[in-house]
């Protein structure tokens, strides 16, 4: 009996150390805290902006604010002037909007906290993903594919693990095997210098 109990304790110790090793190992400086692994990393922002109200209820398209997504590597955070475009008139008396107008009046940029943060050595380009078209010409990706149901979430949170393995699986899905003499077409390259250069 005693050795059974001993081996049980050993098993549990081993499992936990393996788990922490797994969490810690993938690379240096990647935010691998448990929240980001399972998604759900939602830091508090200087202004309580709700995606659910804007993108969900009002149905404002993503690229209205994140306008750089179709032209640049970053999606871009809207300048305060875009917010003031509407909020100069709409609900300008509510206390939250007052905070916004203070920022705008003092000409101070709003220090938003980055939610979907990648390490500096990864060069993800929104442009090629947002404009990607499949054979039939429709857009292949919607913002929700990587950022999750943003229009339903009140505070923006990191929905996907955004780890390298997660991206590589999606890229690997995109390859058509070599058929009748034509080489295998991989329209989503998986070579290292796709993202690291």
């Amino acid at each position: 009996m005693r050795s059974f109990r001993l081996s049980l304790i050993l098993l549990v110790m081993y499992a936990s150390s393996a788990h922490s090793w797994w969490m810690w190992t993938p690379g240096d400086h990647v935010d691998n805290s448990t929240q980001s692994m399972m998604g759900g990393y939602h830091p508090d922002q200087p202004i309580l902006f709700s995606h659910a109200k804007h993108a969900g209820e009002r149905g404002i398209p993503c690229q209205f604010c994140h306008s750089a997504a179709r032209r640049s590597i970053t999606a871009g955070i809207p300048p305060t002037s875009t917010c003031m475009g509407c909020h100069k008139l709409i609900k300008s008396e509510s206390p939250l909007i007052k905070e916004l107008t203070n920022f705008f009046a003092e000409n101070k940029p709003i220090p938003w906290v980055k939610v979907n943060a990648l390490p500096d050595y990864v060069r993800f380009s929104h442009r090629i993903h947002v404009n990607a078209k499949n054979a039939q010409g429709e857009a292949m990706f919607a913002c929700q594919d990587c950022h999750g149901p943003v229009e339903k979430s009140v505070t923006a949170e990191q929905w996907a693990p955004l780890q390298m393995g997660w991206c590589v699986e999606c890229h690997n899905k995109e390859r058509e095997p070599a058929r009748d003499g034509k080489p295998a077409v991989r329209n989503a390259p998986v070579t290292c210098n796709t993202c690291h250069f």
Partner: protein
Amino acid sequence: MKGSISGINEQILIGTGTKPEKTYYIALAIAVFCLLIGAVAWAIEIIYGMGVTGLNSPVYWGVLITNFVFWVGIGHAGTLISAILFLFRAKWRNSINRSAEAMTVFAVITAGLFPLIHVGRVWLAAYWMMPFPNTNNLWVNFRSPLIWDVFAISTYLTVSLLFWYMGLVPDIAAMRDRVTGFKRLLFGFMSFGWRGTLREWHHYEVGYGFLAALATPLVLSVHSIVSWDFAMSMQPGWHTTIFPPYFVAGAILSGCAMVYSLVLPLRHMFRLEEIIKAEHLEALIKLTLLTSTIVAYAYGVEFFVAWYSGNEFEWAIFQKRATGPYCFYFWVMVFCNCLFPLAFWSKRVRYNQTICFIICLLVNVGMWFERYNIIVSSLVEDFLPSNWGHYEPRLIEIALTVGSFGWFFTWLLIFCRFFPLVSMSEVKLIMPKPLRGDGASAAQKH
């Protein structure tokens, strides 16, 4: 002939039981001091970066990789003596196999440090070299000789560790029977509760045989893989097919020389002259002589192949080795590895332990220079004349080399202090059997 095996345990365990005399503590102090020098040098290298060493372009490897190959080489003699000679049932091995195996394990541990020391980012290299499932979905490059190294050396370390520990189990049981209290519990636990029943011995002997069988190919394969670290590249002077046998012969040569130069002082320090007899050491010297001749042949063949292949880069490298700016290292290597061991041909020299001790030390010096010569003198001048550079080891690298010797001898001295230097159960086998006088004939019948 009437013999008795009583008193052997007493004689062997004298070192572990009583307090050792002063020379042991002096030796241990020196070893730990050298170890600290190496530790400080490594800390500085990690804090400031590889720039503190003398390495540069094109000589990216230098003293650190020389140490790595040197220490792995030394490890091979231990496995040779304990595994291969066990299969050959060579009697003289039983007295020195324990110390040889211990030296193997500690040499491979020291060698295992150097890939971490010479690597640029050790805090990543330590675990990225291992193939484990990770969130990057990316494993290691199985075609890289360095990954072969990782596998080969970790396997070699594990197998020689197991081999050495299984040999220790009966001896620890014997030690357990001589002590009481916590030590008894500890030794009992360490020897798996060994009682020496026939069943245990039966499976032990078969298992030990298999372990020896499995460890034998390792002696040849591990240093071949280490030689592929160089042979797999296109560097003239490295890219030749003679490298695997050449490195294995070199390894066994430096290993035997190191065993001899270690066993001699330890035998004197722990007064084991009767057990580790002179003819056992003489057999070891004969083995050293054999491998020295193989290494000498390898040097000659390397030159011939370079000339015969008509490849101007290869031939230029070898001419420069013998006459160029680094010819000092080359000639030290040739003298120490090939010429001095020729003295072993005479029986009188083989039995004169001081001369043999000196020649064995020189062989080790020669083998260190051989690795240095292979690495540096072909990196310095290769294909394009504009690549050519110059390399001189700097203080940090010398400190790390001293540190590696400190690390090795610290482990060895601690081992000698707490564990029997000679395998008691095996040395009894080569002692005359305890037979009753008239009954001697009866025993023969079996």
